[in-house]
């Protein structure tokens, strides 16, 4: 089976400051990969580099067997790599529906748009109720759902979620993770960034541990959870 | 744990005292000697213009280049200084010498008010507000027709209206130096104002205050985090940059023995803006380099007068795109300290 995403020796940074030092990561289609690690160690930077917002300084990113290194953002999106950014970044003045439709602008036919909208509303029924409400009036959990729904509208063959639990109450996090596991059962490939290791482990097939701009360990959630390296990273051992 | 402060962070990489002193000494010698080597009336007149614009642009550069506040009120401040001195001389018989300082003070007060008005604004909004103020000032002066004082049969308006103010005298150099040497008096007076303005700009740019200004300009959030009050600094820079600008306005009035609302023309504002941008925004030598370059350009354009605007526009456009650090930026060895 070819991996859906394969990253080899990836380097990137801001200006002249390197942040990622040769990332290696790969996982299969239909899998959920959890990317965990403490705050400020380059998880967001990695997603931004994959989606083309940041230039790659070295290494390769291969999506479904084809290199997407150095492509413009809209082409990477066009191939089906969708980055749901940290903190949602909704179009605040627009309605929920318009937020979703913007993500569907690449679709040519109206029927396609409607089909996809139906799928999104089916998975996230709350959005259907709120579809005419302005995004900035929504609750935190609803906003997160719009962000995820927007990613699905854009046609993600690979959905990259940056901290979907950020700033939410535990009960709401449960809801969001429910959605992620439903997606996973439907065969969606997901790369989910989390600081909360247990949460990530619940849904993931593979967990990768990030530390100082490198992936220091990859493996099944159970083996990683019992390992010592997480303690080392988290507790500065 | 506290980080030791890197001494390089405290030193300004742009500052090079030896270089600055050498350039300054050379420039001063040239300016002092030139009118004696070429005692040419036209040249001396151009010298006055150069000095006055250097004074204004060097102060404007403190607000825009160093402070990062896109104010377009600098010529209005200049006009307030000039008009104040002229009116004081005309209506209260205050000598222009004294009026020059009063003009500077009035200009400072005016500028502080402008600064207050701009406090909550940034970027384009400041530009629009200050442009609106300057335009309103000009329109109000030009359309002023209310009789303020009778002068024989004619009626004088308070502001001079569209004809401007005149007959308020000058700095009296004719009496002091004789008719032939009178222009030299204006020349050296303007020179002194430009020198003082540049010295002041130097002190501001390389002082801790200047560093704080640049911190605010480059990263508003960071400086707020460090407790640098942008409000206080913004007012300070508006006030400080106005005094010499107002004085230059008074010298302008005394030199031409007249002052009119045409100094508020947008075309002049754009000309001075070009000087500042082309010289190098926020750089100490920028205003001198830019003013000299554009006055030379104007001189060259005398032959091609009809293409002057296009030339100016093209220079402005090209320098913003290809020469973001201005003429001065071309001479630096190290990359910009950003």
């Amino acid at each position, binding site marked *: 089976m070819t991996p859906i995403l394969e990253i080899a020796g990836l380097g990137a940074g801001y200006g002249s400051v390197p942040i990622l030092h040769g990332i290696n990561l790969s996982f299969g289609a239909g899998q959920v990969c959890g990317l965990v690690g403490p705050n400020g160690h380059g998880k967001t930077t990695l997603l931004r580099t994959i989606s083309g917002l940041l230039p790659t300084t070295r290494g390769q990113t291969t999506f479904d067997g084809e290199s997407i290194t150095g492509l413009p953002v809209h082409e990477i999106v066009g191939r089906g790599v969708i980055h749901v950014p940290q903190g949602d970044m909704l179009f605040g003045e627009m309605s929920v529906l318009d937020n979703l439709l913007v993500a569907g602008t690449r679709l040519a036919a109206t029927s396609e748009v409607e089909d996809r909208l139906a799928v999104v509303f089916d998975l996230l029924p709350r959005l259907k109720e709120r579809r005419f409400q302005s995004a900035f009036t929504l609750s935190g959990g609803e906003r997160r759902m719009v962000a995820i729904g927007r990613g699905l509208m854009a046609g993600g063959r690979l959905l990259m979620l940056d901290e979907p639990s950020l700033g939410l109450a535990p009960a709401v996090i449960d809801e969001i993770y429910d959605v992620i596991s439903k997606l996973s059962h439907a065969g969606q490939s997901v790369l989910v960034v989390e600081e909360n290791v247990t949460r990530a482990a619940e849904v993931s097939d593979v967990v990768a541990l990030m530390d100082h701009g490198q992936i220091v360990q990859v493996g099944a959630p159970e083996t990683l959870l019992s390992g010592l390296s997480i303690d080392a990273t988290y507790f500065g051992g | 744990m506290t980080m030791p402060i890197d001494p390089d962070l405290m030193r300004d990489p742009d500052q090079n005292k030896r270089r600055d002193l050498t350039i300054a000494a050379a420039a001063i010698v040239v300016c002092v000697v030139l009118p004696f080597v070429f005692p040419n009336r036209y040249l001396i007149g151009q010298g006055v213009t150069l000095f006055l614009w250097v004074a204004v642009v060097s102060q404007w550069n403190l607000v825009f280049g160093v402070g990062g506040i896109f104010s377009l009120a600098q010529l209005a401040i200049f006009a307030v200084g000039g008009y104040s001195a002229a009116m004081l001389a005309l209506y209260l018989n205050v000598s222009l010498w004294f009026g020059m300082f009063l003009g500077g003070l009035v200009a400072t007060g005016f500028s502080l008010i402008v600064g207050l008005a701009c406090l909550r604004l940034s970027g384009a909004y400041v530009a629009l507000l200050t442009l609106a103020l300057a335009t309103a000032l000009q329109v109000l002066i030009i359309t002023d027709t209310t009789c303020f004082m009778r002068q024989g049969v004619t009626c004088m308006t308070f502001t001079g209206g569209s004809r401007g103010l005149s007959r308020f005298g000058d700095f009296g150099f004719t009496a002091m130096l004789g008719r032939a040497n009178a222009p030299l008096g204006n020349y050296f007076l303007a020179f002194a104002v430009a020198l003082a303005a540049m010295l002041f700009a130097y002190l501001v740019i390389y002082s801790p205050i200047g560093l704080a200004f640049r911190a605010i300009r480059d990263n508003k959030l960071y400086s707020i985090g460090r407790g640098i009050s942008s409000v206080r600094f913004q007012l300070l820079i508006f006030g400080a940059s106005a005094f010499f600008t107002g004085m230059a306005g008074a010298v302008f009035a005394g030199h031409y023995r007249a002052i009119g609302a045409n100094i508020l023309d947008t075309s002049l504002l*754009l000309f001075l803006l070009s000087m500042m941008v082309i010289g190098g925004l926020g750089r100490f030598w920028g205003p001198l380099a830019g003013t000299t370059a554009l006055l030379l350009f104007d001189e060259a354009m005398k032959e091609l007068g009809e293409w002057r605007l296009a030339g100016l526009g093209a220079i402005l456009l090209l320098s913003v795109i290809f020469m973001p650090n201005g003429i001065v930026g071309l001479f630096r060895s190290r990359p910009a300290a950003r």
Partner: protein
Amino acid sequence: MDTFIQIVISGLVLGSMYSVSAIGLTLLWGALNVLNMAHGAFLVAGGYAAYYFGGYLGLPAYVAIPGALATGVVLGLLVYAGVARPLRKNANFETTVIIATVGVALVIENLVQKGFGAYPLKQPLSLQGGFNIAQTFVPWNSVLVCVVSIVLLVLLDFVVRKTRYGRMIRAVAQNYEAARLMGIRTGAVYRFVFAISGLMAAISGIMLSTATTLSPTMGYDPMLKAFIVCVIAGLGEVRGALIAAFALGVLEATVQFQLGVRFALPLLLLLVVVTLIFRPQGLLRKNEASRL
């Protein structure tokens, strides 16, 4: 009664002129944070292009007017490609683009002056005649100007609010990075907005020149008024700009008739100053952060 009708008519005509040119400005600001100081020069170019095609080459109006509109669009695209795009990465984009477009304005103004002379010209493409409403003569041309601008603005409002393109413009304006992550080609959106802005400028330039005369500096005053409209409505507000333009047109006409011409502009400028000090987001906008 007569004065009242005069005020209303003259206010409506002023308002429609202001609104079309203000929309071009405000759209650019809302979508890209570009304050286009060459907007007045675009107006001039549009007016003179119509004169060139219609008067100088003697082409019929249905060729001359599209030709002039195309000139506006091309200018908009040129400023995008030559100015906005290269400066986009610049840290002080907002101010550098103001300075750069001042440069563009000077070049255009000078070229027009060299090509057509500094003296006022008459725009051949204007409607003649008119009718009376209670002693007040209303030129057909003014009626046309009003109708055209209202139709245009309603159309543009529809485009921005309801169409796919409009949604993309709003998305880019509200969150540039998220728009990119949704696969929007931001460059194409910018190009589109610049083209529309140039088009609007050309239209208002043509309308203005049919109502008065052509001169190389005729763009300055309407640009100033457009700035005033935009600030008072809130920079970036499309619908607000429309309302503000007509309100200010009527206000200006009232002041002119009642207090004298002298006070009209200073009063408007004072309104700008007061608005910017106390309500920088504009009078017709709900919350400070809102964009388009």
